[in-house]
């Protein structure tokens, strides 16, 4: 009971601040927390990146393996995104199979990459209908302090840009690994920007406490030319059309800023 009183006081405080255009950690409503990106942190993976968004910390590792294509797209490689909310990251994360939160996280990250056609999946086909490369994007949440989607999408993009593909030759239907690597061909750069609606106002990059009091959540993933390539509304509340259109404008600006942190000129 006491803790719920404290929670309500805290909620009031967050809402009051936001109505004044302020936030608990003194950010502006459309400011991101400090973003740190580090790539190549897992040498054994084909690609990897760690992103810190304030105290939220996500590691993405990329593995590339041989496998069979889907029967309805026999001439394309396969992209598989998985997210693990490992119990390291929060007292609320339980070990076990993916739950709806980790599935949603993985699928929103997946959608941004897939719909922006960031990976040239045609180039990952070795033998149509038989053998293709499978790109495994594993999102590993190490510390949870809110806004996992943006941190994960950014880490996934940074990791993909850092991914090397081994060279190979096909001899009599068998794939032979050859020495050396080439970078994985990445032709678009989707960046997710997430909004929380609190007290009917929009804030970007919600922290954990903000997530706990937000009415609803909206993620817009923006590709390199400013197009929207994925959307996801979450949470128990709703948005007005006007809010969504306003969010779109902010998202394009924010996505461009974040993109600079991972895409080298």
């Amino acid at each position: 009971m006491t803790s719920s009183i404290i929670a309500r006081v805290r909620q009031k405080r967050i809402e009051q601040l936001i109505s004044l255009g302020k936030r608990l950690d003194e950010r502006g409503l459309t400011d991101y927390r400090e973003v740190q990106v580090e790539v190549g942190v897992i040498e054994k993976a084909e690609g990897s990146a760690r992103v810190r968004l304030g105290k939220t910390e996500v590691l993405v590792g990329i593995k590339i393996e041989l496998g069979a294509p889907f029967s309805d797209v026999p001439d394309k490689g396969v992209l598989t995104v998985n997210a693990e909310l490992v119990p390291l990251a929060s007292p609320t994360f339980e070990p076990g199979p993916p739950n709806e939160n980790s599935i949603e996280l993985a699928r929103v990250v997946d959608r941004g990459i897939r719909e922006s056609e960031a990976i040239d999946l045609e180039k990952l086909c070795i033998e149509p209908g038989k053998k293709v490369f499978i790109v495994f994007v594993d999102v590993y949440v190490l510390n949870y302090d809110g806004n996992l989607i943006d941190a994960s999408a950014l880490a996934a993009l940074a990791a993909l840009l850092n991914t090397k593909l081994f060279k190979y030759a096909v001899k009599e239907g068998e794939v032979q690994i050859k020495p050396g690597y080439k970078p994985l061909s990445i032709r678009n750069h989707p960046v997710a920007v997430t909004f929380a609606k609190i007290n009917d106002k929009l804030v970007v990059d919600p922290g954990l406490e903000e997530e706990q009091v937000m009415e609803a959540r909206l993620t817009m993933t923006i590709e390199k030319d400013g197009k929207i390539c994925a959307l996801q509304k979450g949470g128990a509340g709703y948005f007005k059309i006007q809010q969504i259109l306003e969010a779109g404008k902010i998202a394009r600006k924010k996505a461009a800023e974040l993109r600079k942190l991972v895409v080298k000129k």
Partner: protein
Amino acid sequence: MSKKKVKKLINGKGIRYDGRKLNELRPIKLEVGVLDNADGSAYIEQGKNKILAAVYGPKEVHPKHLAMPDRSLLRCRYHMAPFSVEERKSPAPSRREKELSKVIREAFEPSVFTEYYPRTSIDIVIEVLQADGGTRCAGITAASLALADAGIPMRDLVSACAAGKVEGHLVLDVADLEDKQGEADVPVAYMPNLNAITLLQMDGMLTSEEFEQAINLAVEGCKQIYQLQKEALKAKYVEVKEAKKEDAEQ
């Protein structure tokens, strides 16, 4: 979105492969109160979509520790029958079905007065018997009627419809083939009286101008569907009244 163009979907006059105009809904059939055991139920046909929705509740929560002291626990299960799609689907819930169950539940959260029934649960079940594109939206449209049929108090009905981009045109109520070959699909759930968007997702790519048009188009679709929902409820209400009258007369 696969970009393989198998077939021309929109002709020079802006008519879609199934004869619809760009901003035209598919034929929709709605029926309320179709299942006997459920507290509320509804059936929708939209194009070749055939979807049943049922609501059980408010009822005791099982397992008990999930009960909430201040409101009802809203739960949702979106599920596709194994025979509803081209290639048989395993009946075990897929990741897609789990994600959709979550966003559909969140689409109803702003609608239901959950605070009226503390310590209970309200379970929404959506079963796709045949899928033809836009099943989440059609499922929401039906489930909203099932909630009404169950007598659950709501701020407004939730109506749902997708807009999309196909061969460069913005279109309303994206069908399966248009979804597979098209450039974007934007499912929207909407409460007309509150001007509230309660579900919003997108696959594909749209410029901000296209997106603004798409969302407005989808909302227009929702408003049309809202009228159909109200008619379906009225039909049911009249039917019940007449049945009662008959009972009284006998």
